Every structure is written in structure tokens, then in C-alpha cells.
């Protein structure tokens, strides 16, 4: 079946793709992710990140191999080619559900994080509304605009994060990283596998494959580069977090990155810099959520063969808004996020791998499409 895509043509370059994926994966570092890592790996959390990067790259190579069997086709189309239109649609809907739930939960967590860090007396709905309006406008303006925005702002975000981490240098205590193996090699390896969900957002490249102006080899490199560089920052943040905040407190912080920026003290005049860093991480949140929204819209459009994505936005916005406000408390949202981190890899890595296996067995490739 031919998709009649009547939206304006979109072509994304190498740099825009990298920036978008890096922000899509990396934004969780501003939320509870460092704490989640410490939860999983205690003192060896940084080692856990390292192992997760390697496992994620392996999975990515499998996904790229699947994508390269069908050049220029998105994961949604590939699913339908490989599994047939009904099963393919079911898988696509599962992916869509995962995207919607993960993004709306992140929307809730980001909104709560804004309340904790910047606006303690504000109602949660007001925060969610502003997020949702900005997401709507950004998604309406299109993928090109969001990706360029990501590319332009990424250097500033990286500079901001690096500055926070380096400014904590006086508090680094290398002893906190020991014992090196932390919870023991076997558990470390198992938990590292669980943690690959953190890199599951790399699947964005698969969903948006038709929009890229480069070939499969570059796509592979972009994926590896993005996982490695975001992983490096996860590593950097985790190591700093472990070295600066003592382990018992590190297990309890709701917003570890904010706590890190609060800890900066470079003399009397440079001690309250957290408000400045609010700009960086909130900006990242806007980008992350907008990418999530437009991705949900594009997945829906391509799965259901709808000519435009823009009419879907109001409906998706309402769904996001309602789901974000569904958890009764912030803690509930955090535990949902925890479950997502534990089982997210099933949706992001296992299903595409399964489809790759089916494609291999059924010898499906571009000619059969």
C-alpha cells in the first residue's frame, strides 16, 4: 500500500540527526536518571553505564542491519512489510503506545521538576499546559524546525552541562568510586543490560529514516556516535554525582543534576548558579518533549496511512496532557519511569531485533517491499 504523505518534504542532515538523537536520549540525565543508575550499580554505576553503551551499540548494529535491508523505509513500514499489514500494525501501535506513555510520563516528571527547582508554589497543571503549548507549536512547525533548533542549542547545552560538572571539581572525591566492582560483576552485568533502555531512544533514527538525506552507513555511524557521546556524558555525570554526593544521599535525590548544580561553590559570588542552569535543562526538556510529540504524530500517520500529521496534534496533545496528570503523585510518575527503565528495552531493542530475525528467516528485503 502506498502512503500518500502530503506534508511538506523534509530532509534532515547529519548534524541535525545527531543533535536530535542526543537530546532525545540525553535529556533524562537532568531528571532522576543518575539516581536510577546509582540505584542499579551503587559505586560502580559508572561502570554500568560503560557496559550499557557497548550492549546498546550491539543492538543498534542489529537495528541498522534491519533498516539497511529496506533503504529509505521507516521502521513502521518495515514492520508492516516483514510481519504483514495486520501484525505490523499491531507492533506499530505497541511502539506508539510506548512513545506516548514514555513522553507523557516524562512530561509529568519535567513539570514536577520545574516545580521543585524553580516554581515551588505553582500548580502542576499550569506547568504541563505551558509545556504542551510549546510542544504543540514546535511540532506544528515541523520536524525540520525542531531538528535545527536541536542542532543550534546542543552546543550551549553541552557547554552548560560541562560547566556544571567542571565547576564541582573542588568537591570531587575519587574515593567514593571504590570499590570498583560495586555490587559484584554478575549483578553489574545484569543491571547493565536492564539499563540499555536508557539508550532505547536511538530508535528515533529508525522511525525517521525516510527523512534523512544520508545513506545507511552514515545512519549506523550516527547511531554509534550518538550512543557513545551521550553515554560519555552519562558517564561523566554519574562519576561526578558519585564523587560529589555521598552514596546514601545520592540514592535519595529526586533531581540529581539540580542537586549537583546547587552544590557549586566557587567563592561568595559564584554559589547560586542553579537558576542559570535551569535554562539549559528546561530547554532540553522542551526539545525532548517536542520530538516525542512529533514522533508520535509521525508514527501514527505512517501506521494508519494518513496524509497529514498536523490534524493529529490536538488529539495527541490531549492524550499527553491527560496521561501526564494521571499519576496522583510525583513519586508515582517516578516509579512508572523506573518500570520503563527496567522493561523499556523490550519495546526499543527486543522488538526490532525480533523483526530483524523474522526478516532474515522470511528473507524479506527491499525487493519484497
Amino acid at each position, binding site marked *: 500500500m502506498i502512503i500518500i504523505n502530503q506534508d511538506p518534504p523534509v530532509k534532515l*542532515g547529519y548534524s541535525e540527526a545527531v543533535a536530535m538523537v542526543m537530546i532525545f536520549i540525553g535529556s533524562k540525565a537532568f531528571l532522576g536518571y543518575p539516581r536510577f543508575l546509582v540505584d542499579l550499580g551503587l559505586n560502580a554505576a559508572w561502570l554500568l553505564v560503560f557496559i550499557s553503551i557497548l550492549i546498546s551499540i550491539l543492538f543498534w548494529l542489529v537495528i541498522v542491519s534491519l533498516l539497511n535491508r529496506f533503504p529509505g523505509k521507516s521502521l513502521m513500514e518495515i514492520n508492516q512489510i516483514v510481519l504483514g499489514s495486520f501484525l505490523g500494525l499491531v507492533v506499530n501501535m505497541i511502539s506508539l503506545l510506548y512513545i506516548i506513555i514514555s513522553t507523557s510520563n516524562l512530561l509529568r516528571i519535567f513539570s514536577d521538576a520545574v516545580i521543585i527547582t*524553580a516554581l515551588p508554589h505553582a500548580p502542576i497543571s499550569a506547568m504541563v499546559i*505551558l509545556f504542551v503549548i510549546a510542544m504543540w507549536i514546535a511540532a506544528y512547525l515541523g520536524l525540520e*524546525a525542531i531538528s535545527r533548533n536541536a542542532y*543550534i542549542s546542543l552546543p550551549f547545552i553541552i557547554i552548560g552541562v560541562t560547566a556544571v560538572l567542571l565547576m564541582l571539581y573542588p568537591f570531587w572525591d575519587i574515593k567514593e568510586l571504590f570499590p570498583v566492582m560495586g555490587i559484584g560483576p554478575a549483578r553489574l552485568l545484569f543491571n547493565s543490560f536492564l539499563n540499555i533502555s536508557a539508550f532505547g531512544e536511538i530508535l528515533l533514527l529508525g522511525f525517521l529514516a525516510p527523512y534523512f538525506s544520508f545513506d545507511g552507513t552514515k545512519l549506523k555511524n550516527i547511531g554509534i556516535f550518538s550512543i557513545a557521546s551521550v553515554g560519555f556524558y552519562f558517564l561523566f555525570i554519574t562519576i561526578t554525582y558519585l564523587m560529589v554526593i555521598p552514596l546514601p544521599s545520592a540514592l535519595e535525590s529526586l533531581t540529581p543534576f539540580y542537586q549537583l548544580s546547587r552544590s557549586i561553590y566557587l567563592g561568595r*559570588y559564584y554559589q547560586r548558579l*542553579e*537558576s542559570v542552569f535551569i535554562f539549559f535543562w528546561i530547554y532540553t526538556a522542551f526539545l525532548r518533549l517536542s520530538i516525542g510529540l512529533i514522533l508520535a504524530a509521525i508514527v501514527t500517520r505512517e501506521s494508519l496511512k494518513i496524509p497529514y500529521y498536523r490534524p493529529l496534534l490536538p488529539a495527541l496533545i490531549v492524550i499527553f496532557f491527560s496521561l501526564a496528570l494521571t499519576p496522583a503523585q510525583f513519586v508515582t510518575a517516578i516509579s512508572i519511569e523506573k518500570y520503563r527503565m527496567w522493561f523499556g528495552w523490550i519495546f526499543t531493542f527486543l522488538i526490532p531485533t525480533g523483526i530483524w530475525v523474522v526478516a532474515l528467516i522470511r528473507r524479506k528485503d527491499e525487493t519484497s517491499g
Partner: protein
Amino acid sequence: MILDKLKKNIIRYFTFHEKLKVEGFVLSGAVPGKKDTKKQSPKKEESKNKETKDGRRMKKKPQRVKREKTQQEENGAETKISSPFENLLVDPELKVNKEYINEIYFLPKNKDVIIRDFIIQLDGPKRAFAVFVEGISDRNTVNENVLKPLMLHSGLQEKINAIDVAEYLKTQIVYGNQTDVHDKYQDIIPQINYGSTAVFIEGVPRCLIVETKGWDRRSIGKSETEQVIRGPHEAFNETLRSNTGLLRKAIRNHNLITEFSKIGARNETDVAIMYLIDLANPNLVEEVKRRLKSISTDYVGESGILEQFIEDHPFMPIPQVLVTERPDRTTSFIMDGKVAVLLDGNPNVLIVPADLFSLLHSPEDYYLRMPYGNMVRLLRVIAVFIALITPALYVGVTIFHQEMIPTDLILAIAAGRETVPFPTIVEVFFMEFAFEMIREAGVRVPGVIGNTLGIVGALILGQAAVQAGIVSPILIIVVALTGLASFAIPNYSMSFAFRGIRFIFTGLAAIFGFFGITAGLFILLNGITSMKSFGVPLLAPIGPRTKSGPDIVMRGPVWSMEERPDFLDTQDRRRQPNVSRGWIKEESSNKSGGDDNN
């Protein structure tokens, strides 16, 4: 009725509608097929000839001037408004021609149009009359170049064909440097309207047109809105021909093309586009011409109006056309492969496509040495951010984020605000509006009072407001800083855009603090990244990333700007070779024994 309309509008705004035909234009490097133009041109020529032949036959039955009828037709017609003398031909009878002219120009009611009767000594005396418009035709030129030769020097002995008389006068008698012969009124009248003199001769079905333009005009003066210390000071003026002349004087290249067209049906205004034919992307030139041609309106009087007709996103605050009054700046853009659009009667030239970074550049950035130029640019980038978010930051800090500033400073702010009875946002809006009013009044007020206005506004209003306890002293600093910063933005439209946006940011900061400002910045940047100017993304070359020389926010040394911006897709990408300073190459080759790296 009204309710239905309202309901329809509300539904229209809140529901999705398919765009019918999006005339999206993306600038690409492809050279348009020359075949098409070749194919078209002979056809056009043919049809032109046919018209003339038909016209010649029609001349035996002269038409009346169809003024009333045409106007009635116009009322119902959506197409271009036709002139009342369309297809009207010059009559061999002088009397008929005079009637036509009387009717077209409402003579003798209209006192501007002068008809001068005289006699030309051809084979025998031939009666003739000259028509010109007082005020836009130069009196001396009409006397010396038209009347004098025709009346004095036309003592002819040879016999000539009646139709060729005009041609004969044009080639041998009249001195005018631009003369022409026409037989259609639709070609003659616009020329009379633009200062030329038309000569009608008894028994000759053609009219001699002599260029006699000459009106009072401003001489080329100093640039007033884009002043520089280093660099040329001359600016465009209101005369199209002077402006094209200024550019041609600067670009002495046979490839510089000036194409003229007319815009406006009731009052045709000349518009010229200038570009380098061997450099500018032909697709871009075609697109500019297409947009200009497609404009169907009564009158376009100012380049600002023309800008609004051709821009891509009319509702966005950021301008998409660069406007300049400096010939040197226009020259550099044309040399980059952009297209300049000049409108008659306007000292402002439109440059397309525009990118956000050139809107923030000043010509002086290039004239100054690289370190100074960069210093000025850095200052300007900071100024943009100050103009955009300082009041918002102040509001955010005082309402929500007091903890972010050092204790001493927050105490000072708190002490200053202690006597102020209004909430921060009210005092900020009050002062910002006052500042905007001073600025607006400064532009509108007569020059004599203007000087005092600044003092009244700045000193008395600010000082008095603080003393009266209406605003806090720190706010005065914030407002003054914001105002200064907005003056540092070189582009007038850009300055307007940021001034407007800062109010939105301030409002967002009052409701959501830094979260609101971040939301504002996010939406703004998304808006800008989605914009295009004549097929070129406004944020090129960084959004999307394209190849570009070292001249985006900061600039490198002039000798390192080897290539033109990639996003313009010019026919020749290279501005200069990798080693543009030959003397360095010579020195190094002398040392290394003549190795050529270029």
C-alpha cells in the same frame, strides 16, 4: 449572520485545513533549462508582430478613448486593470491625436500637462505639437533638445516618406540622447508620465518620444540610518536611475544586469532588479521576477510595501528581506550572488534572500580590522540578548528566583522596591511603555523640540518616577540598558522585532519565571528555524548546517573567506583562491624553492 460568520471563523482557526496550492520555493543549484526561454521568445516576438500588424490595420478606424467602459469592466474583473487607451494607435491626423491627449489627460482641466503647438519645416511646413508634464520634464532640455532642433534645424530639402518622418527626425534632427518612436498610446502615455516629451506630427501615424526627465530631487547624501565611521558615506536617494547608477559605478562589470518592470495598475511604479548574471542563482532571479510579476495591485509606493508583498512569512516578527540604504552594502550582497530590488522613489533597497546573521551585521564589521570587527559583533550579540530578555530576567528574578543573585544585590533591589506600591510587572510595563513612547515621540516630534525630548524623557521622567516612589532605581537601569541594547541592533526591522518580543518574554516571566522565558526562547527559535527567505532558511548556514566561510556570528580574516555562502547556490562558489595573499605564497615559495600550493 454575524454569529454564523464568527462561528465559521472560530472553526476555521481551530481546525486543520489542507493548503490548496503551496507555492513553496526551495533555492537549489539547478540551472533552469535554457530551452524553455528560447522556445518562448520567438513566440512572443511573433505575437508582438501580429499585434502590430493588426494594429496597423486598425489605425484606419481610430478608436475612442474607452475610459468609462474600461472602468466598468474593471469593477467586475479580477485580472489586471487595463488602461483606457489600450490598443489605441496614433492617428495620422494631428487633430485626432490632440483630442486623444485632451481626453486622456483631462485637458484643459489638468494644468500639469502642457501642449506646445509648433511648425516643423519639412517638405513644407508641417504642424506638430509636443506634450510634456510640467515639473517632471526639464525645461531647458525640452527647449534645447526638442523644440529648437525641430523648429530651427528642420529645413529639409529631401523628400521623405510620411511614416519615416518620425524616424528621420529621431536619427537626424533631435538631439535627445534617448529618443524613440512609438505608435501605440499605451507605450507613449507612461513615458510622458515619467517626464519624456512626446511629439505628434501632422500626417505621421507615429510619435516621437524624447527623454527630457528632470525634476527637483535630493542629491546623493549621507547615510542616515546606517552610519559608519570607516567606509563610504553615500546613500541611495529617491531617484531610481541615480540608485542604479550608484551600483553600476561600484560594480564595473558587464555581467551586472538591471532589469526593469512595472508594478501597480493605476500608478505604475518602476521596479528594478539588479544581479550578476554569471553569479546569482538563475532560480533565485526567476523567483524574484515571478513574485514581482505576480503582484496585482493599484499602487506600490514604498519599498516597505513591496517587501510585504514578496516576503515569505508575513505574520512572523522577524524580517525576511534585508533593507539597506547603502550602495556599498548592496554591492557586497550583489557580489555574493544575492539580488537587489530597487523601487522608484525610494532610498531603501531590498536584498533577497536575507539570512538572520546578515540582518545582525553592519557593513563596518568588514571594514574594520578583524579583531575590532569581531569585538563589535560580539557586543552586538550580547546586545541582542540584553534587548530581548533583560526586563524578563529582572521580572523573573524579583518575583520567583530571588535566590540566584548575591544577597547584597537582592537587598539593594528589595530596598529600592520597598516604597514602590505596584507589583514588579506593573512597574516594568509602565517604564517600558514610557520608554517606547519617548522613542516614538522622538521620531514624530518636530526637529526643534526633538533635542529637548530626550532630556525630558530620560532625566525628568526617570528621576521623578524614582523620587515619587513609582518605580525602583534598578528598574531605570534595566530599562535604559534594554533601550541602549535595542539601538545597537543595526537593522531597523530587527530592532522592532526584538522590542516587540521582549514584552511577550516579560509577560511570560511574570507568570512562569525562568520557565516562561525558556519557553519563549524555545518557541522563538523554533519559529525562526522554520522560516525561509526566498527559498533559503533564515538561520542558514547553521540551521540547517551548510558549508560556509568564517563569517557567521564572528568573522575570520578577509583573506580566509574563500567561498561564498553555500546556501545561495551561486554559479561560482569561490570568491578567492585558498591563498589569496599572493605575497605570502611568493615568500613561502622563495623559501621552499618554488612549491606552488595554490
